[in-house]
């Protein structure tokens, strides 16, 4: 692929990631300031409660685990390689990752079936949701394929892909390792950039407003007029 006349690799692995992150940041911030009202989980459990469980729960636990794995590999690649130096530990990590990937896929399939078949749910499904489902299907399938047919991804991700990601982050892009990768892996990387670029336009923004301060705040919330502070202690 390298030496392509249209600089395809440069466009896909240097221009696209910067563009995607730029769109992600600017649009997310703009939407948060200008269209605050549209930040919502847009839950549809109220309209359908049975299939909801079998779709949403596996999908969320699956994708959160997989994403966390990618982030950990990005942050501490050496430790991952060290962990994988023992074959048994490598198998455990690979199999666990594959199971969570499968869980995500099963959840996504249930979600798609629910969105396509339940009349009430169809009413709250937008075109953007369908685009997103398509992107996720490609992304998860390419990930699962890579896990099965390009073995020990956790190791070569840490050894080859992570340095590339760091080179992007440090504004010194080096795509040497990426251009040599199989096309399915390239698809997975490009798919990720496209999802990041599309992210702020969709319902995915609910992930940006997960409610963490709740865990530390007092139970009761009282708001006073204007800038005046509560004259006395809060309720609890």
């Amino acid at each position, binding site marked *: 692929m390298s030496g392509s006349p249209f600089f395809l690799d440069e466009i896909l692995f240097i221009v696209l990631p910067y563009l995607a992150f730029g769109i992600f940041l600017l649009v997310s911030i703009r939407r948060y300031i200008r269209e*605050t009202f549209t930040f919502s989980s847009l*839950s549809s459990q109220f309209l*359908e*409660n049975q299939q909801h469980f079998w779709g*949403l729960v596996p999908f969320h636990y699956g994708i959160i685990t997989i994403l966390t794995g990618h982030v950990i590999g990005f942050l501490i690649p050496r430790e991952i390689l060290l962990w994988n130096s023992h074959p048994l530990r490598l198998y455990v990590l690979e199999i666990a990752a594959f199971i969570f990937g499968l869980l995500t896929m099963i959840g996504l399939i249930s979600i798609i079936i629910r969105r396509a078949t339940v009349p009430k749910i169809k009413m709250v499904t937008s075109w953007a949701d369908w685009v997103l489902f398509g992107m996720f299907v490609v992304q998860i399938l390419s990930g699962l394929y890579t896990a099965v047919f390009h073995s020990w991804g956790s190791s070569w991700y840490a050894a080859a892909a992570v340095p590339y990601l760091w080179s992007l982050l440090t504004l010194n892009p080096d795509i040497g390792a990426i251009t040599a990768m199989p096309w399915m892996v390239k698809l997975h990387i490009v798919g990720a950039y496209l999802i990041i670029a599309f992210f702020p336009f*969709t319902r995915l923004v609910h992930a940006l407003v997960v*409610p963490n301060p709740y865990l530390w705040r007092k139970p*009761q919330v009282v708001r006073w007029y204007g800038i005046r502070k*509560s004259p006395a202690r809060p309720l609890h």
Partner: protein
Amino acid sequence: MNVRSQISMVFHLDKCIGCHTCSLACKNIWTDRRGTEYMWWNNVETKPGTGFPTQWEDQEKYRGGWKVVDGKLKLRSTDKRHTVTDIFHNPSQPTMDDYYEPWTYKYDELFNAPEGADQPTARPISMVTGEYINIESGPNWDDDLGGSPVYAENDPNFKGLSHEQRQQLFAIERLVFFYFPRICNHCLNPSCVASCPSGALYKRGEDGIVLIDQKRCRGWRSCIAACPYKKTFYNWSTGKSEKCVLCYPRLETGQAPACFHSCVGRIRYLGVLLYDADRLEEVAKLPDDQLVDGQRSLILNPNDPEVVAAALKNGIHESVVEHAQRSPVYQFVKEWKLALPPHIEFRTLPMLFYVPPMSPVMASKNDDTVESVSENFFHDIEEARVPLQFLANLFGAGHQAKVVYALKKQKAVRMYRRAVTVGDIDLKTAERLLTEAGSSVEEAEAIYRLTSLCTFDDRFVIPPMHREEAIEMIKDPHEHRASTGFGFVQSPERGL
């Protein structure tokens, strides 16, 4: 003492005729938008009945409100741990089936139908999908005991009633029911506020109205599971939760909320109460039988100079204190002890109080003559058609004493007024009755006046809300007046 003010309400159930005017006034103002069609911020239930959403009082099913665990207040199903683990799928979340699928009719079919032998009909269509639907239930499906064997029998308040007592309610010749209008209780210890992961729900410091910040709400729906009265609702179209706002834009301009204003039976009262916020937690943890007294002890006497001084020191406006002194709610709840909180065992300390309803007078039959008066004037309270335990489950956390007290006093006031106006009861007997009920002639006259002769101004003592003070802190009020308007800067529409 940490004095705060709270707009509170009293609903006099003995006067409610179940006309649903309040519900419609509210619906027309607030919930006629897409996604809110199924919501009834104000609804009127027939008791016994299952209510709206169905069996909302059953916390085994919906797991809302607070419970005391090892001397600590805990949310029943929406504490922090559960909010984290249940965030993708909340098992105690009601669904549309627990309320009803809203519908309208295809009226154009009445006009467009081809000529034929049959009358054209307007078939019902779902307001969610637009498809034809078979209507299976609605928000008032069991109104006036409609379908009692299915609905009324499932009333959660039958807990602790014997089989005979239950049957007594349904025997045709003894059939009895009353109406139970409900809005948000604007609780002192709201479980909806405590459960909100986004911190979108809050209690207004100045008047205690509980609101949902539409910009902060992310649709996690903890409040819906947490509210034991099921008075927060999920707008499935915008992905935000909504609730009764006590018509605060009306209150701020000195008008009574729409449901209060339109009440045909004049059952509704609204006024300010001063309460001690420091003792909230302590009271919310009391054993069931002490909760009613505990909540009453939170409510402070607005005529006590010490309370007034503390209120002013806390920034409560003088005019609000003056209105608290004339509050009809204070009289019903604290002075006369006639009004009781609904299901206080949920421990949210609701600030909407109900005067329990009198059952129809039970006549006793001697041979062929019917006697309505016996030596024991209070006999029809203990042997009322609505079993006392049923009312106690609703208004006394299962304990009858407070309900009996309120009913006896109402009965004594009735007898006293009958002695005065009709004269077939001896005035001495009536006065004895008042004493037995813990009342006096003066109090009976006051209760009579506020119950039967009350004008608009007697029922609604709305304090000035002093929005101008709030605005002054941010900008010049004159500039604000010229620049502000109603509505959204950004339209409240669902995002992609």
